[in-house]
Each structure stands twice: as C-alpha cells, then as structure tokens.
C-alpha cells in the first residue's frame, strides 16, 4: 500500500516536472539570442523595450542568453536548421553573414541612419562587402592604458602625465619594475597577455603592431605575406618579446594580466573600456587612471578585432518585424539608456559628450583614441583562424621558441594558405 502511494507520488511529481510550461498568452515574440552574459542589464533592456514595441506592432522581445563557451555551436546548429532559430542575434557580421550567409541585409534607410550616427572607426563594423547587415553594439571595444596611480607615484612617475610615446612608455615600465633578490620581478611595469587562446594574444599584440606602422593583412584582406611578416611587424614583435625577455618589464610568471593588475603586481595593463567596472568590483584598493595608448611610428588608434553586432536572421518569418524593432530602438536616447544601464560606452556620436560619458574615467582617453587615425581592420570570415596562426608566432617569441622573423614568416605562409583554402 505504502509502496503504491510512493509510486503514485513519484509518478505525479515526474509528470508535473515533465509537463510543458504553461503556454504564454497570444503575443507574438521576436526571439533574440546573445552570448553577452556579462551584460545582463544590457540584454534585459531589449525585453523592456519590446513591451513598448508590442503596443505599436504586436511583437514582444524574448531574450535568450547563450553561454559564451560553445555559443558558436549552438548558433550554427540553429541557424542551419532554419526553424528553431532566433529572429535576431548578436554576432560578428563577417562570420555569420560573410562565412555563412545567415543574415538579412539592412534596409537602406536604416543603413543610412547608422552610417551617419556612429564614430568613424565603427562605420565598417556591421558591414560585409560594402553592405550593412549589422548594428554595431559596443563602442570602447578597443584597448586603452589602465595605470595604477599608487605604483606610478611610488616610482616617481606622474600618473597625470602618462607616457605618450613607446620609448617613454618603455622607460616608465622599467622604472615600475621591481626585482626581488633572485633577479625575478616582484612587480612588473606591464601586465602582458601570454596565455590562453592565440586569438586573444593577437588581439592584445595588435596595438603594438599598429603603433609600429604594421598591419596583419593586406588592405583587401587577401594576402598575409608581406604584411604579417613585414619589417615593421618584425620590429613590433621584437619590441613585444623584449618586454619579457630582454627588459623584463613584463613576466610570464604572472598568471592572467587582469589579476596581476588587480593584485598590484603590474602597474599597467591594456584593456577595453569595460575593464574599469571589473577593477572597481574585484580590486577596489587599486586607484587607477585610463589613458590613451602610446604611439610609435603611428598611433594604435581605436580598432577592434571582435566587432559585435546585432543581426537579423534571413530565414526568420518575422524578419520585417525584427527590422521594425531595430528601427524602433535606433536613436540616440535609447542608445544612451541601454549602454548606461550596462555601464559601458554608448555607440551614437551624439552621446559621446553626454554627462554620463563625461563622468566616466575613460572619457578623455577615449576622446584621444578616437582622434587618432583609424587602424587597420581584419573583418574576414576566417579572422579567427588567421588570428590563431598569427598569435602562435607571438606566443613563440614570448616563450623564447624562436626569433620574430622566422616565426612570422611561418605564420604568414600559414595565413596565406588559410586565405586561399
């Protein structure tokens, strides 16, 4: 008897859990996928705005946050499947529109609106072969120089006058590096990225390459040899490697660069505009300032290897409504509201002088970086593979596995093969 009751209870429990969730009321939904887990407020904003949109157009917005680790597999499975895919999604235009042809082209009026209202360096973001598909999402996705004010002062350096040239910067890094009794650095000037995926290492090295006047690929993105292994690139990588091996102002013994900066074991780090939120939360003892990156032969400028955009799925039965929603939120007011909620820089030029942006620690440095010439971009469908091949050469130099020239020659040949395949 007791056993029967237990079985019934278990069966009921199982049925309850397996039962489909209650069907929502008859509202139509635009489904938006994003892998930006780090920005829950930013994502939630779409749902809030969707409620407003629904009053006029009958569509609400449902946000699905996909874990970053493995999001590409999920996107690919769904977008190839045609149904069961999102109407709108966050991704890189050259990947999802260029490599896979999953995107709907942006209506001309909207394209014009966006082209006219974003900073110059962002205009190519969201475009593929001259046509706009994506809406750029993230301004400030370029590296800037975060410096530890206390460590600067201790070294007799003025944090209000950060180094402007690479030579001055290197001299400052030397003064900021403190060796222990065994000759190992107990504090380094620069927190260098040397571990993890080679794409990330390429991303962190590129500002140095650009400051040396080098570029990773030809302007038409069809050739690597002569660019990825140019004399300027070799010099840039030599400089980068020397930071670790010769000058010892950066150390491979330290783990990830963010932790080293947060632990006051490194005085300077190059990171994007979101980083100050991380420092405030994880290392509240660190007093920091943000400055523009130092220049060499050229200035690194504001450029991004990972240009995130909002895209519309070309097989979505709701794509007209999806574009309507994008049009609905394409204005300076919403841009400011959404980005402010998430704590990062708005995209529209009109907002760059808003009190919110002026009150940010990266206001001045962002302005300076935007004034620099726009650096080369590498929005190629195979950008991940190319950056991986290139990054392996950078890692090789940092770990003393070879000289910059032969490693870059090898990388360039590999990249050319990737470009041809």
């Amino acid at each position: 008897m007791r056993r029967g009751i237990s079985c019934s209870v278990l069966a009921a429990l199982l049925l309850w859990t397996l039962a489909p969730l209650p069907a929502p009321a008859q509202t139509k939904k635009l489904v938006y996928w994003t892998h930006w887990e780090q920005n829950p407020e930013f994502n939630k904003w779409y749902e809030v705005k969707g409620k407003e949109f629904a009053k006029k157009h009958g569509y609400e917005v449902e946000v699905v946050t996909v874990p970053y680790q493995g999001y590409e597999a999920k996107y690919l499975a769904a977008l190839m499947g045609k149904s069961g895919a999102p109407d709108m999604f966050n991704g890189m235009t050259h990947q999802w529109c260029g490599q896979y042809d999953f995107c709907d082209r942006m209506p001309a009026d909207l394209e014009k609106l966006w082209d006219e209202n974003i900073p110059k360096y962002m205009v190519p973001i969201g475009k593929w072969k001259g046509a706009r598909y994506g809406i750029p999402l993230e301004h400030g996705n370029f590296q800037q120089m975060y410096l530890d004010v206390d460590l600067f002062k201790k070294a007799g350096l003025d944090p209000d006058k950060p180094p402007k040239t690479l030579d001055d910067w290197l001299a400052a890094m030397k003064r900021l590096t403190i060796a222990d009794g065994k000759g190992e650095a107990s504090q380094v000037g620069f927190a260098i990225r040397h571990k993890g995926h080679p794409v990330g290492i390429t991303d962190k090295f590129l500002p140095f390459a650009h400051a040396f006047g080098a570029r990773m690929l030809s302007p038409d993105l069809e050739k690597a040899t002569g660019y990825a292994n140019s004399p300027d690139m070799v010099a840039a990588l030599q400089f980068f490697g020397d930071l670790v091996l010769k000058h010892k102002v950066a150390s491979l013994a330290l783990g990830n660069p963010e932790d080293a900066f947060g632990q006051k074991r490194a005085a300077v780090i190059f990171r994007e505009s979101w980083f100050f939120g991380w420092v405030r939360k994880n290392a509240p003892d660190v007093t920091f300032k943000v400055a523009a990156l130092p220049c060499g032969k050229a200035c690194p400028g504001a450029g991004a290897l990972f240009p995130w955009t909002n895209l519309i799925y070309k097989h979505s039965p709701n794509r007209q409504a999806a574009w309507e929603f994008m049009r609905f939120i394409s204005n300076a007011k919403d841009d400011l509201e959404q980005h402010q909620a998430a704590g990062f820089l708005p995209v529209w030029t009109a907002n760059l002088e808003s009190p919110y942006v002026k009150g940010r620690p990266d206001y001045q440095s962002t302005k300076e970086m935007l004034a620099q010439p726009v650096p080369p971009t590498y929005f190629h469908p195979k950008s991940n593979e190319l950056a991986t091949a290139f990054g392996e050469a950078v890692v090789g130099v940092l770990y003393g596995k070879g000289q910059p020239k032969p490693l870059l020659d090898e990388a360039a040949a590999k990249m050319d093969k990737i470009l041809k395949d």
Partner: protein
Amino acid sequence: MSRAAAPVDGRLAQRPASARGRAGRVLLGWLPAVLVAGGALVVFFPLFWMAVTSLKAAPEIQRVPLQVLPDRWLNLDNYREVFQRQPFGRFLLNSALVASISALSSLVFSALAGYGFAKFRFPGRDVFFFAIIGILMVPFQSVVVPLYLWMNRLGLLDSYPGILAPDLVSVFGVFLMRQAIEVVPSDYIDAARIDGSSELGIFWRVVVPMVKPALATLLIVKFMWTWNELFWPLVIVNSPSMKVVTLGLISFTNMYFIEYHLVTAAAVLSVLPILALFLVCQKWVVRAVVMSGLKG
C-alpha cells in the same frame, strides 16, 4: 670501552642487521600509507580550495600574498548571489531529473540489448554489435546539427525529452552489459527455459540478479556522465527554466572574465548531489570505477 668496540659474537654481529631490517620493514609498512595520504591530499586539496574560495569576496581572491583561508567563514554572500543571478535550484532539479531518467533508461535498454547480444544467436549478431560499438568512435559534435534538426522537427527543442533523447541509450552500457551477461552460465538460462519461463521472465528472474554489480556500475557511471553533460544541453536549451547545472556553472565564465567567487560557489552546489551519491553508494561507486576501468 664501548660495546661496539668489543669483540662480537654471532648474535651481536646480527643485531645491527636485523635492526636495519626492522626499520626497513616499518618503512615499507608506512610507505603505502604515506603515498595514499599524499594522493588523498592531492585529490582533496582542489576541493578544499574550491570550498574556501566560495566563501571569499571577489577582492579577497585577488589579494597578494595569497591567503588560503577566507576572512569570514560564514560568508555565504556568493551562494546568495548565485541563487539571485540564476534559478540554480531549478538547474539542480533539472540535472537530477535528466541524469536519473537517462541512467534508468540506459539500464533497461543496455541490459536487454546486452542480453540479446550475449545469449542469442542470430544472423549478423557480431556485425550489429561491432557497429554499435563503432558509434563510440563518432564524436558527438559531428552529429549535433542533424540531431538538432530532428529535435526541431519533432518539436522537442527546449524540453526535457529533447535534452534526454541522445542519453536514453548508452552504447557503453550495451557493451558493459553484454560482457557481464556473457559470463552468466547458459545452463541456468536453459534450465529456466525448460521450466517454461518466458524470455522476459528469464531475463528478469535469472539474468538480472546475477549481473547486479554491472547494473549498479552502469547506473552510477551513466548518472555521473549525464550530470556532467554540457554540450548537448547547451545546444538544445534556451529558456532559463530548462537549464541544467553545467549550463548554470559556465554562465559565470563569460567572454571577458571568470567570476571565481561565484563559479566556486556554484561548483560546490553542483558537487554536493554527486558527493551525496558517493557517500550513499560508496561501495558501488568504487566497484563501478574498477569495473568500468577494466571492461570499458
């Protein structure tokens, strides 16, 4: 004169040697214990580190020099935040449900298939068996897209049956059960057949009782595998209420950084059910590891 300098007889001469022998024996006796203790420490330390880190605030984790123990032992803020940020209780429930059903289902299908392959002769038996075993060599990633399309066609995306579908049958389980059932003496089965028992009756009353250790092995191993499954749930699940614990865990590792204080708290929560399973079925788990290691 000291005793050592005195002329020695046979007994005295042997004494130092036997003392050395005793010391050697004692050392040999202790050596395994020391090795086991060292091994235990190596295994235990990451768990300990995870647990103490889960009690630290984010800035404490960054502190230099590294501090092993947390400032406040009763700091449960990270656990609170885990539950505030994600419906983690629901994730645990989902994982428990999915892992239990997949383990039980694999048990049934694998045992039946194993019985068929071990005790019945039919044309193409070995070919079928090796074809099934061959599936083990196909990486799951390569079948994800077609599987996703099927689930979509069947309307099973973002549902429990959808998450469960690829896990209902275990190839490893078929192999394990076939090996286990093969050693059951056929005489018992023949005797039951002569006595008029049905094939299912034979399976249930004769075969199953004799392969209980293998069944327990499969149950535990499959439960743990499904509990740790990430890739398929990642692909098929959309809504937060359908997520499993592994998806909850990686949500604290984003594009830019890892929230160590939250990851460790979530990891502690996700380890607890497996730990409970281990404590309850310790004997079976050890046997499972040994059996799956030998036969898998």
